[in-house]
């Protein structure tokens, strides 16, 4: 199993213990995970993420067999298409973008262009609904959550689009899923890092209603405890405990790119 929602680097609004790739590899070993798709946490808050991407590629290089880079690409920045080519050269299975942090509205045309371009390469676009609970945010952390409308808009942008939406909760997932056609629904995958388990059983209800194949394993390490999504799966009701989440390899367009080891 691959953790498709891991990050390295510090977070600007609170201290995060040792968010380093060598620590992440030890955590993956401990948790029995094969590898991770890894983003660069500070890049979400940079105006220009390109230097953050360089740091990411460099930091992950010694761990290439386990950690796959997921660079941040800002589509309203000059030469973003060359950043996408760099991502391809680096074997990135996906890219990340942060519309709220860049003040982009839900129907931003450059975001659609980016989602389509990445999708045509077979790369997923990883979106982040939130980094922290609304109730604990720093006063300067004013970007707000990614909206359901923004996700729907990108899912509708075209057939090639593949979205991995991280840190969404039940209400948002339902709002987006049932607001898309069946074909559009297949373009969206959800990580389970922020979905509640029992007693409300949000994960169980979602799996029952829309299927386990729409979900992928993600932790949001180093911000959140790695143990949480596994605990949630362990506590599914008996009838759902054998549910299988979608493997990272199925998120990338079949045959175009691998999700595990280095692929150029």
């Amino acid at each position, binding site marked *: 199993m691959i953790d498709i929602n891991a990050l390295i680097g510090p977070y600007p609004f*609170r*201290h*995060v*213990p*040792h968010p380093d790739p060598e*620590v992440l590899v*030890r*955590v993956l070993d*401990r948790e029995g995970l094969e590898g991770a798709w890894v983003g660069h946490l500070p890049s979400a808050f940079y105006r220009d993420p390109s230097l953050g991407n360089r740091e990411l590629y460099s930091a992950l290089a010694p761990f290439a067999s386990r950690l796959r880079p997921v660079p941040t690409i800002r589509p309203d920045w000059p030469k973003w298409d060359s950043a996408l080519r760099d991502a391809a050269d680096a074997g990135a299975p996906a890219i990340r973008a942060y519309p709220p942090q860049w003040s982009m509205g839900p129907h931003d045309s450059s975001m659609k262009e980016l989602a389509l371009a990445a999708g045509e390469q077979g790369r997923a676009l990883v979106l982040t609904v939130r980094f*922290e*609970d609304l*109730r*604990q945010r720093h*006063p300067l952390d004013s970007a707000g959550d990614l909206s359901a409308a923004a996700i729907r808009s990108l899912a509708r942008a075209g057939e090639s689009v593949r979205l991995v939406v991280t840190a969404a909760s039940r209400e948002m997932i339902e709002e987006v899923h049932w607001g898309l056609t069946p074909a559009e629904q297949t373009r969206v995958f959800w990580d389970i890092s922020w979905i*509640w*388990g*029992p*007693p*409300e*059983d949000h*994960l169980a209800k979602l799996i029952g209603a829309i299927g386990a194949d729409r979900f992928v394993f993600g932790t949001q*390490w*180093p*911000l*959140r*405890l*790695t*143990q*949480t999504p*596994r*605990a*949630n799966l*362990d*506590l599914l*009701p008996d009838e759902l405990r054998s549910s299988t989440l979608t493997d990272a390899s199925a998120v990338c367009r079949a045959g175009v790119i691998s999700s595990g080891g280095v692929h150029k």
Partner: protein
Amino acid sequence: MPPSRDAASPLAGPEPLIDAHAHFYHAGCGRADWAEVNAARLRAGDRIGITYHVASVLGSFGFTSPTYFPSPSDVTRGNDVMLDLCARDRERLRMKVTVNPNYTEHALSEIERCAAREAIGVKLAASRRADDPLLDPVCELAGARGMPILHHIWQHRRREWPSQEISDGADLARLANRHPKTNFILAHIGGGGDYMHTFPAVVDCPNIYPDLSGSGVDRGMLDAALDALGPGRLLWGCDLTIDTGLAKLRALEVIGLSADDMTAIRWGNAAKIFPAGSFPRCGMSRPRVGSAAPASMSEV
């Protein structure tokens, strides 16, 4: 409902485990799935290995009066439901009596009424700021009866929020200092707000025991709690998310606490602050409590 087959091989191991912060619903809560949610709590509890759920009912949970400002009649009905649940499942359930301190006489009479039927703690929601003098008679009575008070807390309040009169660790510390013979459970360090404000706010109040419950699972939160307060001051709990409770137990194991310290957090500290004999399935003798030594920063 009897304990399920999961009770034989619990995910969190065979040692006793007390959820110090649980809730149950009833038909008057306005949600059709109330019984399913109650059953799901017990199902997940058995699978983890929760020995006792120490639970309360917050009135009608907003259906006929606000969750955090329950009317006296809703308070009474909710407490009746909890009494009945405990009577039917003495194996697994223990009760905290919910009160609204704005109705002093009603609050005191509810504590007396429910304590007579084996309630072991008191639940204060967010009906009044924690340091308000209106809470004093409730705290005096609870202390006299040896019942700890679980107080709903927002970790660092920076403004008012709707639907509750929130309190934070500093507010609760002022109350706890006025009532040194009463024990207080500071609710859900993972339940919203900035827990890093809470720990220094309560460190000098030995009668405040934060519980670990809440949906928040920030890395560093458990390390910081242990570093600031030590394992002898922390209670395990779930509140509305049992999955995060299990994750935190597993994270505590990774931190590498001693067996005694794990025992303290799992059930020993709860056994220490609730009335003697409240948890017979946790063993005949009171446990050793956690050491004061802080845990080192971990890779949880």
